[in-house]
């Protein structure tokens, strides 16, 4: 091949034609091979191949006015529950303090009774 191209060196037109014909033959072979592969895959599958193109859909939810009111009410109730939880904690702390005071009083009573016995 190289000798052929070197021999054609003085005749660039012939060189271009020869190489052009070689590339054209390669192109013809590629097309033929592609058609054969396509035919082979059709025979194997017995049906035309289907190409799936995935599509991502964005969905927007539109609530009715009634649903929006229910949503608002639900959020309000959640707010009440949150506020109540803080109240519950505060009351629990107060209860614990009161119980401590009661325990102290019981201890003072017992101390007084013991002192009286002495």
């Amino acid at each position, binding site marked *: 091949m190289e000798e052929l191209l070197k021999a054609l060196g003085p005749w*660039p037109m012939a*060189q271009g034609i020869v190489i052009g014909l070689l*590339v*054209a033959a390669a192109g013809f072979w590629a097309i033929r091979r*592609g058609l054969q592969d*396509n035919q082979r895959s059709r025979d194997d599958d017995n049906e035309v191949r289907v190409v799936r193109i995935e599509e991502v859909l964005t969905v927007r939810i539109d609530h009715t006015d009634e649903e929006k009111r229910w949503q608002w009410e639900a959020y309000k109730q959640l707010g009440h529950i949150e506020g109540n939880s803080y109240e519950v904690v505060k009351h629990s702390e107060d209860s614990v303090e009161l119980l401590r005071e009661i325990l102290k009083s019981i201890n003072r009573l017992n101390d007084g009774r013991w002192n009286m016995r002495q």
Partner: protein
Amino acid sequence: MRLLNYYLEGRRFEWLITIAMLWLAVAMFVSPQILQASAFQWITLVMSPWFTASCLFAIGWARLVGLLLNGHQVRGRRVGPMIRAVTAAACAVMWVQFDLALIQLSVNQGFMSPGVPFWSMFVLGELDVAYRVVANGRTS
């Protein structure tokens, strides 16, 4: 956007080359000295600028038609892929002439022209397109 994707999906390289071909053809019709004054001057030894421009325009136009036909059927057969495959092979023949011109320039100047790797790969890319288009025909 969906319409654009319908035509572009899987064939961006072909669209780019088609636009480049038509662009160069129009430019050469306007200014025939483009080839003569460039690194591709060796092409003008075998083909006149008008002939080169006409070939580029004809093949580019045929390729554009093949790309736009997409999945349309003519007499029950999809002709788009075959047109694209044949024009891809024709483009490979054209690009090898450009490549040869750069190789000739490289031989003359004693070192490789920087365009040689790119045009050589264009030739291989077009042969790959010619195979893939008919081997993996889309059904849509």
